[in-house]
């Protein structure tokens, strides 16, 4: 009899141990602490930036007894890791987030920061794209800390060597410049990805191509599915872009080239489409020779700058220390925090705070002087499945594997396949 009890007990103990193992850490208490203090964990997107290091130091100094533990997560797998983390209830207290469609995926797991940060501060950094339905009257699931830009970095020394006096501003000038640059033995526009797989970030190029072609109202139509990606204005832009590869103005291996950055710094590549986060890296490598300008993907001189109050911070609903995590987010968008970002070379989200980085400050000044239309990053406002179709298709277009019409048709199909819950009207044009 004793053996039977022992046997049953052993089975129960084994099951209990396994169950305990399965449920360990699954405590999803929302936390009720209102005091600022203790330790919070913050996930950074890729390597931690200097500005974040300075922000953490500033925050810990301002709130003695607090510690921000930063965990660097790889950028190319960031959202997958975050998704796994939040769904298993093991999310970090705070995590880097991008507004729009990126944030939308994590809305259910993000704390409403409007309960912790006052409305004026939220408005000052244009936090509406982190809010439900882009409206600050609704829950706000994050705050943008920096304002990022997509643009073309170019090496003026290479342009000079090829006899190109000024950076091109439209397709005709771009083709002319690339002809000279290629003839001089340089690569005109470099495309690639440091990991060698997954292709390049074509949505940056598309933001310029489509922004110039159809404007914000057109974007609203594309997002809503009422306008087609294959409309002539966009199709023509993408076809002209694709012709850069057939003319030999880009590298052939656009999907797998790992050395685009190395070649750019080595002075072998004249231009690359990237963003403001690369400005410091480029200045460190090329000094005064490097500059930035809007991608000249336009029939008329380009007058659009892609800029958005972009990378920000969200706080997990599962945070055990939400007050401190929210205080860290608030500190990032405070005057003090924004100045720290500016001093580290970033472009602060708060309007009127400049950047200490020469390239970024130069382009901001040019935008103001020339009155460029500022448009947000298109990829932020499309559903992840549409973004995937767009990026994958455009990669194949520039690699010469797919026609522009077929690629854009796939984006239309992906847009049509969205459910009502996935399709969000951001009303970018304000109409």
């Amino acid at each position, binding site marked *: 009899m004793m*053996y039977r009890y022992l046997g049953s007990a052993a089975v129960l103990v*084994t099951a209990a141990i*396994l169950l305990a193992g399965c449920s360990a850490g699954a405590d999803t208490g929302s936390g009720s602490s209102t005091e600022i203090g203790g330790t919070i964990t913050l996930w950074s997107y890729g390597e931690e930036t200097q500005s974040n290091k300075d922000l953490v130091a500033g925050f810990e100094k301002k709130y003695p007894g607090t510690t921000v533990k930063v965990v660097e997560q790889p950028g190319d797998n960031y959202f997958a890791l975050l998704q796994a983390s939040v769904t298993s209830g093991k999310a970090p207290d705070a995590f880097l987030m991008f507004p729009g469609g990126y944030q939308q995926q994590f809305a259910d797991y993000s704390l409403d920061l409007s309960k912790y940060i006052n409305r004026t501060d939220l408005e000052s950094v244009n936090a509406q794209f982190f809010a439900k339905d882009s409206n600050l009257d609704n829950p706000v699931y994050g705050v943008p800390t920096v304002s990022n830009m997509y643009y073309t970095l170019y090496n003026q020394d290479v342009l000079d060597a090829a006899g190109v006096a000024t950076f091109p501003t439209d397709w005709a000038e771009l083709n002319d410049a690339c002809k000279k640059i290629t003839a001089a033995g340089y690569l005109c526009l470099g495309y690639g990805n440091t990991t060698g797989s997954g292709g390049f970030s074509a949505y940056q190029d598309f933001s310029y191509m489509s922004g110039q072609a159809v404007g914000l109202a057109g974007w609203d139509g594309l997002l809503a599915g009422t306008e087609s990606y294959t409309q002539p204005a966009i199709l023509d832009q993408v076809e002209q872009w694709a012709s850069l590869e057939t003319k030999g103005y880009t590298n052939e291996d656009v999907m*797998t080239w790992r050395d685009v950055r190395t070649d750019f710094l080595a002075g072998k590549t004249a231009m690359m489409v990237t963003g403001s986060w690369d400005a410091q890296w480029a200045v460190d490598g090329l000094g005064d020779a490097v500059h930035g300008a809007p991608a000249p993907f336009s029939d008329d001189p380009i007058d659009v700058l892609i800029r958005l109050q972009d990378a920000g911070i969200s706080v997990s609903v599962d945070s055990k220390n939400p007050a401190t995590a929210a205080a860290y987010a608030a500190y990032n968008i405070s005057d003090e925090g924004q100045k720290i970002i500016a001093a580290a070379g970033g472009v602060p989200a708060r309007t009127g705070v400049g950047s200490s980085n020469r390239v970024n400050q130069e382009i901001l000044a040019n935008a103001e002087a020339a009155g460029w239309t500022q448009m947000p990053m298109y990829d932020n406002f499309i559903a992840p499945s549409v973004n995937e179709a767009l990026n994958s298709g455009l990669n194949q277009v520039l690699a010469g*594997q797919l026609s522009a019409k077929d690629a854009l048709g796939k984006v239309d199909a992906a847009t049509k396949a969205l459910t009502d819950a996935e399709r969000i009207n951001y009303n970018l044009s304000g109409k």
Partner: protein
Amino acid sequence: MTISLRRSTGAPVDRRRRPRATAQPLLRQRKFWGVIFVAPAITSVTLLMIIPTFQALYYSFTDWNGRSANWVGFANYTQGVFASPDFLRILLNTLLIIVSVPFGVAFSLIIAHLLATHTWGRRLFRGIYFMPIALSWVVIGLTFGYLLSSRGPINDLLSAIGLSALRQDWLGTEATALGSLILVFNWAFFGINVVLLYTGMTTADPSVREAAMLDGASGWKMLVHIVLPQTRRYIELCLILTMSAAITGVFGLIYTMTSGGPGAATTTFEYVLYTRSFNLGHFSQGAAFGILLFLFSLVFAVLRLRSGVRADDK
């Protein structure tokens, strides 16, 4: 004199009439300890395999977002899986990787046979062939990603031997990406398969081979009629191991070499399960692909089991 170990009473054995007083406590004890010893395994399998499989089946009929789930019927299958414009391509890719396995194993068999029949350099080559098995998928993927890149050593080699026309962006071109991936996958299993088959050949009863040789068998005849039947179990083992990996273990290679592209040229069920769940946040569609992958594995497992049974019946 022979001693019979059977206890014969001369009367038919009545299995119901056993000496209870001594046997039953012993049987009970054996049952008890049997239960004790298998309990952890049964609990683990139940908690980690059976329950999750049924959970995945349930979630594939819901709009599960990782936390909450509402019943949506077959929507994930009809809209998320079968209506996907890339579904047929993904199915084809998965099938092609699986179909490549017998060819990879056949090549391993030939090399193992050569190693078993030629003594020169046997140890050296065996070591070289076995080396890839010590490498992780990520290392293999990253290495071949570099080797096969448009500016990589393989293209340089082609140019050096006058075959510049064959230079390709092997992983960035739709026509060659899957083929390259399949070759790398089979290469990764080549070593373990060669070693397994070699072991099978060298541990087989040598008298059968010697008798065949005396009867004049050699070369191809020897391989087909003697070696293959003798190593059938080992070949089956290689096929099972490699096919299992082809269905559920090729993710690491795809992730590091192509990320499923160009387009969907190298996307498989296993890879799309991951991207739907974690890149797009469609966990329920990921679960639907998981169920499909499970059924896919089941079909191949049943086919293999049935073919094994038929071979045993012969």
